[in-house]
Structure formats: C-alpha cells, structure tokens
C-alpha cells in the first residue's frame, strides 16, 4: 500500500468567485432547526454542510458522520465589509496607490544618458560590463559599483543589476541608459528575497513607505493640451531640458512655471516636469502628439481603528469624507495586476479587493458542532451564533435598502454588519466591544480559536491527547532493573497492544483471549471482517475458540513489553525513556531510584506517564534509541546522568570506608540478588568475633565491591576522600563515594560505559544499588533528631568562641565606623564597606561553628556520613541544624527593610548590630527566637519568589530556544544545516564529535591512549 504524502500547503485569499464555487449551499435563513426538529433548508446547519448527528447522511457527499469532512456554504453580503485582519494593510495600500488611476505611486525608470558606440554594444551583447562602461558611467557622474552584472532582458534591452539597477535600451540606433527607478528596483528586490527564501515583509514595508511619500501621481492627470511631436520641442525634452519655447507654450496655456522646472525623461516616451519639487505635468507621446497632463494630486487618507477610512482635503480644506467599503473596494479593484506584485502579492492568488468581503464563506457544521444538553435542548457553537447575527443584520440591511430607508439608517446598519463580521473573525479588537453570549461570556471567534497555548495550532495540532497511556504516582523499588518499570496490574489490564494473529502466535493469542479480562488477557479482538468485539465475562471462552489467523487481538501489556515513561516538565530528551514492563501488585508505578536524576523525579507524590507503543517501528526505535541504558550518558555534558543516589552512595561508602572482614555467609548475604557464581579466593582467615576459636576464611570489603566491577577494569581517579585505584577489575584502594558511582559525576560508571558498553553499565548500576541496599540494611542506618546533638562543651565553644566572638567583632566594626576610623575599600562607600565586613565576619562565624559541629559530631554521625559521601545534604545543612543558622539575606545584603531605621520594633533605630539585621545565632535544633524566626521567614520568602518567577521565565526561554533550533540537523557531509539548506556549521561543534560519545567530556582521551600503548 502506498500512503499519500502531503507535499505542501498553499496559502492564499479566497476570491468571491471561488467562495461561491466551493459553496455547497447558499445560506439565507438565520434559523437553525425547524419545528419538526430537522434542519431548515438554506439554514445555518443545513444538511448540505455536513453531518454531526449519527445516522444521518450528508446531502452533498453522501457520507456518514465521521466520513464526511463537511462542506462550506456562503452568505451573500448585502454590502461589502472590510476583513478585519487586513484593515491596516488596506489602509497602507490605499495610501500607496493613486486615488484616481490606482497605480502604485512609485516612479518608472528614467533616462540618464545615451551613448552610441559599437564596442560598448558588443560588450553588452556578450553580457560584460567592461572598463569602458565604467568610465562612461563615471563621465556622467554616476557611480557604477564594481560588482555588477548585466543580462539581456528582451530584444534590445539589457539590465544591469547590483547594488543599483540600470536599464539599457537601444533606441534610434543609440544606447539609452536609464536608472531603473523605484518600481523596478523594488520589484527586483522582492524577487531576490523570494529566491533567497527570506521574508519579503521588510521590502514590502519599504514599498508602502516610499509610495506613501508621493503627493502627485506620476501616471495620470487631467488632459490639458497637446503639441506636435518631433522637432525642436521633443528634442529639448529628450535632453531633459525645459526650453524657453516650451515654457512659453505652457504659459500661454495658463500654466505658470517657476524659474527652473526640471524635466525627467522616463522610459517609453514619457516625461515628467517637476516644479517646486512636485510633479506638475506629465507629457505622454501618442498619435504623433505630445499630450500634456497635470499630475493628479493625492489626498491624505486617515485610518481610524478598527475599520474606518477618511479622505481629507480637496477643494474645501479640512473636509473629511468617509470612504465606504464600496469606495475602498473600487479603488483596490483599479490597481493593475503588474503593480500588485510590488506588495508581494500574486494577482492569481490574492487580489487586494478580496480583502473587502462581498461574500462570506460559512464553515461546515463539523467545524462548529452543536451539542445536545441533558434537557434535550441544542446548544449551538459560538461561531454559529455569530453567523446568525450576521445573517439577521444582512437581511435587515437588504429590507431597509429595498424599502428606501434614509441614508443614515443604511449607514448604521452597514456599520452594524461590519461589527458582526469583524467580531466573527476576531472578538478581541481594540476599541470594539466584544460580542457576548446571552450569558454575558464573550464569544470565541475565529482568531481566538487559533491563538495561544490552547488554540488550534499549539493546543490541537502541535500536541494532541493520546490513547494507550496511563498516569499514576511513582514509588521506589531498587530491586527492579533500571530499565524496568513496575506497572500496577490494574493499569496493565487497561493498556493493550494490538497483535496480528499469525501461525506463530496463534496458540499464545488463544490463551490470552481465554484468560478473558484477567491479567495476561485481552480487551478486544478484531475479526477478519473488521468487526471489533469486546472481550467480556460471557464471551471470552467462545472467542478464544474462534481466534484465528488474520484476527487482531488487543492483548494486555505484560512483562517484557517496551513502553515509554515520562515525567513532566519534559525539559530534555531523557525526560522520556523506554522501559520494560514488569507487572506488579499495588497501584503505583515502580521505578529504580537510580533513574530519578534524568527525570528529576522524587517519590514525594510525583506522578509519571506511561505510553504503550503500538507499532513495530516505534518499538524498534524505542529499544534502540530510547532505552534507559542507551541514555546513561547525558548529551549535555558527556557524563553519566544515571547513577547511584542517596542510600546507594551511603551504602557503598559505609562498605568501603574502613577495613572490614566478612565470613563466607556474610559475604553471600551482602551479595544476594546479584548474579555472581564465584566469590573468589578469600583473603585470609580470622577468628570470627562472634564465634569460637576456629579460624574461618574471610573476604574484605574491597573484594566484595570488586565482585560487581567488570573484570579487567583499570581506573584511577580522585575521590572525595583520596585516590581511588582500580586495577584489573579489583578495587585496590580508595573509598567509593558520589564521585565514583553517583549520577552526574560517577567516574566508574563513565568508564564502564565507554569500555564495556550499555549492558554492562546497566548491570553495574543495578548491582551497585543492590549491593549498597543489602549492606546498609545489614548495618542499619538512620538519622534522627538526636543525631544533631552536640556535647555541652562543643555547644559552649560554638556559642562563645564562634558566634559571640563574631558579634563582638561586629560591634567593634560598628564602633570604628561611627568614629569614622573605618578605611573604605576601593570603589565603595564607607557604609558599603561596613556592611561587607560585617557580612564577612558573620559568615566566618557560621563557618567556624560548622567546623566545631562537624568535629563534635564525628565521622560516625549519619548526617556527616551522608554529607561526606555526597549522598545527600551538605555540611552547611548540618551546621544550620546543629550549630548556627547564620545570617539571613535579601538580595545578597543583610535584612534592612521594615520600619524607619530599623527592621523590627524590637530594636533601637540605627542599631547596626548582627541581631538587628537578620543574624540567626541559634540552630534549628535549639529553636529560633521570635525575631530570628521572622528574619528566617524573610530570607526564605526570597527563595520562594525566586523559584516561582524562574520556572515561568526559563520555560519560555526554552520554548524559544527549541523553536529557533529545532530544524537544525547534521547532514551526511557532517555540516549542520537548517530547512533552507543554509549551512550553520561546516562541522558540528568544530570537530564533528558528539558530546555524549567522547571520553568524559573530551573527544579522545589522549592520556589514556598513550598510557595504554607505552
């Protein structure tokens, strides 16, 4: 089967003719349904426009609901109205075209000089611009840029293009050189922009601007008088001179000219006589006569939002005349096809007068379906409501006009019709009250349907709701693999995969259907005739017997099926990865904690989505590209993003940070759940502390850890506590911490990935998590409020030495400041200096307190262990809990706002001491004093506001980034290009290296290669 492909989408304006042609029904009645409950003929929801009720057939195409896409109708408007979306553009066009003849007010090519030279002509014929040509131009004081090219346009006409454009024509055996004029230049620019595939909007804007400047039409004007062509008069005109004789003729005709009127010779035997910087007379040659016209003056046009155009000036100054849509349309119709190109329009595709509507297309009913309320009453769509309004007013307009109503009433009705058509397209127009529903809710017009996040484009076309998906809370399970997801049975019974029954799976499918709606069962079957049958309690046995080749079975997902798993916000590609299903009891999705970092998930109530893949292609792609083990290395920085967190780090840290001996049984217990056949040789024997005097063999903690390392691994790196050395797959020395197996850093993970590949890394992460959990369960690990206890002496030291000492120093600083003894730091005022010094002093106090606390708590403390191993939390967190919370700040400064001269009424005005400006000397465990509590809340608020603002800002930032770059792609030749095929980079990232494939962020690890070879 060949699927059809959409090659392109063409945009254009609909002409009235086209609207009528595509219309399935003319609409004249504002009513929808008749008394019999059936749609009214020629009404707004008539059956020619499509079907929205089940069981009915479309009168146009005969299709049923779902088959018939719907058909347009049309309304004949009693009088033309402006299309609101083009109101501004219509104004610009009116302003840029002659009020009388409709030509765009831009100048044609005009004569510069002429030459008669055989050599120059032969140059032209060969399409070269020789030195001699350049000289000719400069002789006539015209600069011809060096990088121009010439091409033959038609017989005896050549065009020079470059920065400026010139036309050369052979006339009367001479070569006449013309400046191309604004019109031709702009046309060429627009054409060029089109070719380059850059927007022509800017060029068109300049056309409007340039044309609007003209106050006299250079093309038309009232005929004045004629003189005979040829002879002296024409010769002088040809030389761009105003001869005395000609001037005389003008004067006898009553047309006084100033002293030096200028003559411009245009192409095709036309001349413009410009007097006082204004085109005054146009001379056209025809019938062997020179006909003199006066240029038509252009009145000013004013545009009043939303749809009113006024013409000002004329005989009586300041006289305003409103241009009705009929006038506007007439003017637009007058613009000749060739001039329309200057607006970037193509007359076949869009004529300007089509922007003034005479016929209104009525969208099919499928676009504006009515809904039936519970009461059986029909509730129409907003667009239908709007169309009803339009038809009503349209009818009234016609009636009134036919009855010969006064002009005033007609104009009012016209205005009303304009209002309804305008708000049908857009109901949020500036200076127009929005049209409202009976209930007072503003109606949703066309524009509102398309626009914005929930609009058609972003809400229904770029993203859609999908079937075969599930969402629930996630919870941890370190015993499943990192590329698995635990799916609750309830969900597994709802989500299905469609399987075509073949010889190979016939038995399996029969079995599945026989299970009915119990877990590894099926929900629907589709027979060969295409009928879909639901599997129910009553029919599953029968169906199971019937299942045969060619059927399709919608079977439940089961262990081993591949699905997509996702957590929002999906900020990067690892926010969606492919996992293998593992059906489990319970109601939550189960996820290995090691995969939390890429999803940025935790288990405090996070929910995640699961999508079941429906095609073989999708499953293949998921397996190869989206699988968890394929995404262990983050493309952002080229290092692992999946790895041990929390207890995994703590567990391995606890295991490896001191020397330990394990008996055979103990070793096996710690390694349970890990696929290991052989413990290896014990390191030695020892007398078990618990047992008798018998010597038993033992294994060391390093041996145990080495069990999960791939054999032959060599690695050396700096851990948090000293060097870690791994030789031949054995941990020789060092402590395993976050830098070794943690996400984001994880040197071992990185190394294993590079050297042993995805599968081995997956296994390693699984194993290390299990090992850590086994060990941490064995030794026990907890952290409670008593772990923040510090002995009395320590407490005293913190309070007196660190905190009080700093407070005294701060007082000292303040005294120095007040006595004006303080030296200002360069570039800072005295007050700033004081603040800075105080902040430094108090910061140091907390640091000191922290150091004391850390010492007092000791390495055995669970909190310290977690902080040191990098599992969770920091020493700062512990300091704040156990020793001293420290200075609270707002915008990097001490808290200073509140009352005049003080932060709170508890302090004296002008008090600069630590306590009065947000220094919290207590620890969280001790409890904060009321003022301290307040300051802490002040500081905390900043953080809250910050996150709230940041999420919205960075969200928009990312949307913009993605939108700007989403089309960039590495081509087969290593270049990066976008849709126009323009090169963005000749080699991706300058070296063509994928950041996720290099070695720990670098393209090639030179050191290692050298070490290996030598």
């Amino acid at each position, binding site marked *: 089967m060949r699927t059809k*492909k*959409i090659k392109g*989408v*063409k*945009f254009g*304006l609909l002409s009235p003719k086209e609207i009528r042609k595509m219309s399935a029904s003319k609409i004249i009645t504002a009513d929808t349904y008749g008394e019999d409950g059936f749609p009214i003929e020629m009404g707004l929801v008539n059956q020619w426009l499509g079907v929205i009720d089940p069981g009915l057939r479309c009168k146009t195409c005969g299709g049923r609901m779902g088959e018939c896409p719907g058909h347009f109708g049309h309304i004949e408007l009693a009088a033309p109205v402006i299309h609101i*979306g*083009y109101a501004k*553009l219509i104004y610009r066009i009116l302003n840029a075209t002659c009020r009388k003849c409709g030509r765009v007010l831009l100048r044609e090519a005009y004569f510069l000089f002429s030459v008669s030279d055989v050599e120059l002509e032969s140059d032209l014929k060969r399409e070269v611009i020789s030195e001699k040509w350049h000289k000719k131009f400069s002789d006539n004081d015209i600069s011809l840029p060096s990088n121009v090219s010439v091409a033959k346009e038609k017989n005896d006409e050549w065009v020079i293009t470059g920065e400026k454009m010139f036309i050369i024509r052979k006339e009367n055996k001479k070569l006449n050189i013309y400046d191309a004029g604004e019109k031709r230049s702009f046309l060429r620019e627009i054409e060029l922009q089109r070719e380059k595939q850059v927007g022509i909007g800017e060029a068109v804007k300049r056309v409007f601007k340039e044309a609007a400047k003209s106050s006299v039409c250079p093309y038309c004007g009232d005929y004045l008088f004629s003189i005979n062509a040829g002879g002296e008069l024409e010769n002088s005109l040809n030389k761009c001179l105003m001869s005395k004789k000609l001037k005389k003729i003008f004067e006898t005709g009553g047309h006084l000219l100033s002293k030096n009127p200028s003559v411009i010779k245009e192409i095709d035997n036309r001349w413009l006589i410009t007097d006082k910087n204004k085109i005054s007379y146009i001379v056209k040659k025809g019938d062997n006569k020179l006909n003199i016209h006066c240029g038509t003056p252009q009145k000013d046009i004013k545009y009043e939002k939303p749809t009113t155009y006024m013409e000002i000036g004329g005989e009586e100054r300041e006289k305003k005349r409103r241009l009705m849509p009929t006038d506007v349309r007439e003017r637009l119709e007058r613009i000749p096809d060739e001039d329309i190109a200057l607006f*970037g*329009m193509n007359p*076949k595709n*869009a004529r300007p007068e089509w922007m003034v509507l005479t016929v209104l297309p009525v969208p099919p009913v499928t676009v504006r379906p009515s809904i039936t309320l519970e009461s059986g009453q029909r509730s129409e769509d907003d667009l239908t409501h709007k169309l009803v309004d339009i038809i009503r007013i349209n009818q009234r307009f016609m009636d009134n006009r036919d009855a010969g109503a006064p002009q005033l009433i007609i104009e009012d009705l016209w205005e009303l019709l304009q209002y309804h058509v305008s708000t049908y397209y*857009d109901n949020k127009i500036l200076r127009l009250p929005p049209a409202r529903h009976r209930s007072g809710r503003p109606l949703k017009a066309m524009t509102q349907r398309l626009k914005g996040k929930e*609009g058609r*484009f972003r809400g229904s*076309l770029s993203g859609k709701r999908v079937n075969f998906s599930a969402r629930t809370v996630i919870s941890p399970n370190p015993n499943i693999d990192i590329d698995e997801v635990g799916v609750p049975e309830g969900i597994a019974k709802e989500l299905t995969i469609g399987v075509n029954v073949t010889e190979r799976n016939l038995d399996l499918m029969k079995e599945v259907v026989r299970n009915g709606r119990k877990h590894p069962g099926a929900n629907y079957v589709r027979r060969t005739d295409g009928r879909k049958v639901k599997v129910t309690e009553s029919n599953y046995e029968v169906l199971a017997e019937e299942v045969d080749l060619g059927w399709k079975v919608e079977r439940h997902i089961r262990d081993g099926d591949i699905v997509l798993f996702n957590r929002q916000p999906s*900020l990067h590609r690892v926010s969606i990865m492919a996992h293998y299903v593992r059906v489990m009891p319970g109601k939550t999705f189960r996820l290995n904690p090691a995969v939390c970092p890429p999803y940025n998930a935790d288990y405090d109530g996070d929910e995640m989505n699961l999508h079941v893949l429906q095609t073989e292609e999708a499953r293949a792609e998921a397996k190869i*590209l989206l699988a968890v083990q394929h995404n262990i290395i983050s493309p*952002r920085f080229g290092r692992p993003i999946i790895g041990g967190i929390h207890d995994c780090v703590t567990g391995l840290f606890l295991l490896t940070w001191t020397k330990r001996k394990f008996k055979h049984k103990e070793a096996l217990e710690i390694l349970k759940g890990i696929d290991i056949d052989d413990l290896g040789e014990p390191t030695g024997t020892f007398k078990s502390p618990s047992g008798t005097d018998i010597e038993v063999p033992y294994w060391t903690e390093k041996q145990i850890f080495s069990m999960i390392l791939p054999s032959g691994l060599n690695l050396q790196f700096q851990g948090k506590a000293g060097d870690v050395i791994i030789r031949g797959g054995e941990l020789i020395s060092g402590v395993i911490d976050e830098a070794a197996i943690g996400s984001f850093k994880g040197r071992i993970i990185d190394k294993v990935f590079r050297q042993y590949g995805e599968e081995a890394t997956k296994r390693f992460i699984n194993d290390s998590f299990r090992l850590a959990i086994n060990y941490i369960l064995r030794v026990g690990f907890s952290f409670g409020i008593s772990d923040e206890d510090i002995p009395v002496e320590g407490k005293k030291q913190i309070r007196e030495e660190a905190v009080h000492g700093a407070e005294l120093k701060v007082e000292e600083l303040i005294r120095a400041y007040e006595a004006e003894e303080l030296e200002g730091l*360069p*570039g800072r005022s005295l007050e700033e200096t004081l603040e800075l010094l105080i902040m430094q002093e108090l910061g140091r106090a907390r640091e000191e307190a922290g150091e004391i606390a850390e010492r007092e708590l000791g390495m055995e403390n669970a909190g310290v262990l977690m902080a040191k191993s990098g599992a969770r939390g920091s020493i700062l967190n512990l300091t704040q809990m156990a020793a001293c919370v420290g200075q609270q700040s707002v*915008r990097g400064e001490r808290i200073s706002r509140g009352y005049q001269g003080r932060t709170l009424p508890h302090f004296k005005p002008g008090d600069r001491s630590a306590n009065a400006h947000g220094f919290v000397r207590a620890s969280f465990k001790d409890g904060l004093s009321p003022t301290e509590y307040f300051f802490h809340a002040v500081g905390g608020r900043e953080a809250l506001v910050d996150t709230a603002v*940041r999420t919205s*800002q*960075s969200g928009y*930032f*990312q949307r913009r*980034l993605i*939108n*700007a*770059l*989403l*089309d*960039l*792609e590495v*081509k087969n030749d*290593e270049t*990066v290009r*976008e*849709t*126009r095929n*323009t090169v*963005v*980079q000749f080699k991706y*990232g*300058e070296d*063509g*290296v*994928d*950041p996720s*494939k290099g070695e720990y962020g670098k*393209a*090639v*690890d*030179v050191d290692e*290669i*050298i070490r290996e*070879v*030598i």
Partner: protein
Amino acid sequence: MELRATVEEEVARELTRMGVEGGIAELIKGEFIPAGLTAEFDELLEMQVGEAYAEDIIRMLGRGEEGEVKLGDIEVKVDKSELSGKIKEELKTKLRDVRMKLSEEKLDAILKKAEEKYEEAKVEPREAVGIVAAQSIGEPGTQMTLRTFHYAGVGAIYITLGLPRIIEIVDARKKPSTPAMKIKLAGEYALDRNKARELATEIEETYIRDIKSKIESSTEDMCVWVSLKEKELERKFIKREEIEEKIKEVGKDVLVETMEDGKLRIHVKRMSFHELLKLEKDLSDKLVKGIEGIKRAIVRRDADGEYMLYTEGSALKKVRRMEGVDFSRTTTNNISEIVDVFGIEAARNVIIKEMMDTLEEQGLDVDARHVTLIADAMTMDGEVKSIGRHGLAGGKVSALSRAAFEVTVDNLLGAAMYGETDELKGVTENVIVGQPIKLGTGAIELVAR
C-alpha cells in the same frame, strides 16, 4: 638582513614551541637552522652552546638513535593524521613529554588508536543537534539563579548573571543591562600601577558634581560659585586649567575666574534668575574628564601579573585609540558593540564566551558544542539575530511553523497575502499535518523491491 631576521624569528618560535628553554634558544638563535630538526652534539658545541644545554637540546630534537623518535617526525605524523585540531595539539604536547619512551611503531599505534576513537566519537548523520543544544541550555535554565547582580571578582562592579544574562545574550539586545569592559594595557601601563590608575581616570567619567565640595548660585552678584575638592583633583589627575576650559564649554560667553581661595566664580553677561539656576545645574552636570557612560574604571591585576582595567559601562570605540590601551586584547560584554568594532566572527566568539562564563559561574556543566551551535545559528546570516519571534524563529520559511510559535493569526494572514507555499521541510510543519518528521530516524526511508 631582513630575510635573516625572519629566519631567526622562525627558529626562535620553533624552539619555544618544542619546549626548548628561552635561554638556550637565545644562545643558538641565528646560528642554528633547523635542518630537518636534528643536530649533532659536536655541531652544537661548535656553536658555542654550553655542554649541559647541548645535552638538553639534543634530547629535545632527537638523537636519531634507535628507538627514539624525532620531534619533527612527531609533528609531521600528527599533522598528517585525521584528527581535529584540538586533539592534534594535545597529542603533540603530550607526546613530547613521553618522547623518551616512544618508538616509531608506538607512535603509529597511538595515532591509529586515536583516529579510531575519534571516528567512533563522531556524531551520527541526521542527528537533531539543534534540539539537543536547545535542551542542553534550556534544561539547566531551571536551576539558574535569578539574582541579577553579582560582583565581578573582587571589584565593586555589578554584572548581570544567571538566567537573566543568558536571556539577554540570546535576545541579541542592543545594550546589556550591565555593560562592562575588560581593558588590557600595553607597554609600561601594564606594569606600572600608577600609570594604569592614571589611564583609569582618563576613562572613568568625572563630572563637576563629583569633584566639587560646594556649588551654589548667588543672586547678589548673579554668578555661580564652585569650590573644588583638591584631594579629588589630585586623585583623578585633573588640572585646574582643564576644568576652566571645560566650564567655558557650558555655554556662550561663560566667564571663569579663579579666586585667591581657589573658588571659581562663573558668570554670564546679562542673565535671568532662571538662567542662573540652569547654569548651576549645567555646571554640575558637566563632564570634565573621562568617557561618558563609563561609570567606573577599576585597576586590577590579572593572572599574569599585568595591570588591567575593569569598567562599568562600555564604549569600545572610544577607548580604541587611547594611549596605553592594548586594543587587540580588550573586550566588552556588549555584543552589538563587538559587531560594530570587530565584526560578526568576533561577536560569535563573544556570545560563546559570555554564555559559557555565565553557565560556569552558576556551576552548570554544559558542553561547549551546544553553546557554539546556538552562537553560530544566531550569527550565520552576518548579523546577530535574536532567538525569538523577531529573529530566528520569526525568520523561518514555513508559515505553519511561525504560526505555531507566536503571533499565529498575523502570520497566517501574511502567508495568505503573499501566497506562500509551505513545503513542509521542517519539524513543526510535519507534526501539524501529521506526517513523520524528517530528522533523525525520520530522515531515512526504506524502499522494498
């Protein structure tokens, strides 16, 4: 003579590149021509190179003995290999260090292995690198601070950092919210703190209001009295005559007199009260020294021990020709200024550097390739385009893609008027019409025969 000079220079450069100490290089400069980059011990001695040095040089250049590879050969071979420039440079320096243990075969083996690894590390064709880059910058955006101000080093200069700064760069704003320059100094300015400070005062804007101790207008004799802070004048290296000159520029017929006590008496013939007050204001707002818009210039020592200037405010064009400024090493964080002065390639580099610095300051790890791609996309047309509806996203060929981004209706109306045809080459367009996108796996088609 001239030819000789260039040869000498080349040799010196060659030697330093190979790691020969400056002293030795100096000794043999001019005498030594790197003939195939080998030298015999005796030859060196003949050139009156000290014995100890000669040993060194020979070790560097290679003795040509068995198993040992000449430096020149390493260079040639590495250059020939199919590796990227950066890796080649790294290989050269690192191989130089282990040259003693190197043999011809080992060198080949190393290069072969490096080439293999390099080939493996290359991007797959059809990879959607744009999206990956956008995600890699956008995702850490959520983790960045919003705190606008931060100190640059020790100085008291405020610089916008974090997310606001990244957004600012990507928006291609004409002027950043906190423009700043880093001015490197030339010659003795770089070594002499006082000279550097003097230059700083030439750059930092100084108004009369900054150096006056008092300014008041007296209605009795219809003039303005200004008294100056001597200490400030001295600190800013301003001479009194200069001030008088500047004051005369304030208006027509301004007369300045210096009284015995150092006070300045300024008046204009025939003046109304209103004009008097205006004169007072104009006076205090008169720039007497420095470049307008540069609020502060601070002297700091850089990592190499050179003195340099950090400024708050930026005016590249104006510092360009100042004596003591090493303009080739002077930068600003104002990208539009960089385009004007240095051109688009420089702007691209500054975009990369500013973004990388901002990310690094926030402690975020992002591969330079992503940032480079963004900078290249922004500058590919020869002007800095913003990322957003007025720049890259708005300049797309596809009307559907533009409509799906922002200003939906205007884009559709425009497309209809211009009669655009969407050829469905991009991602968004194909998503909208419901077809597979043409990137990555979607770019490949299988044809069954």
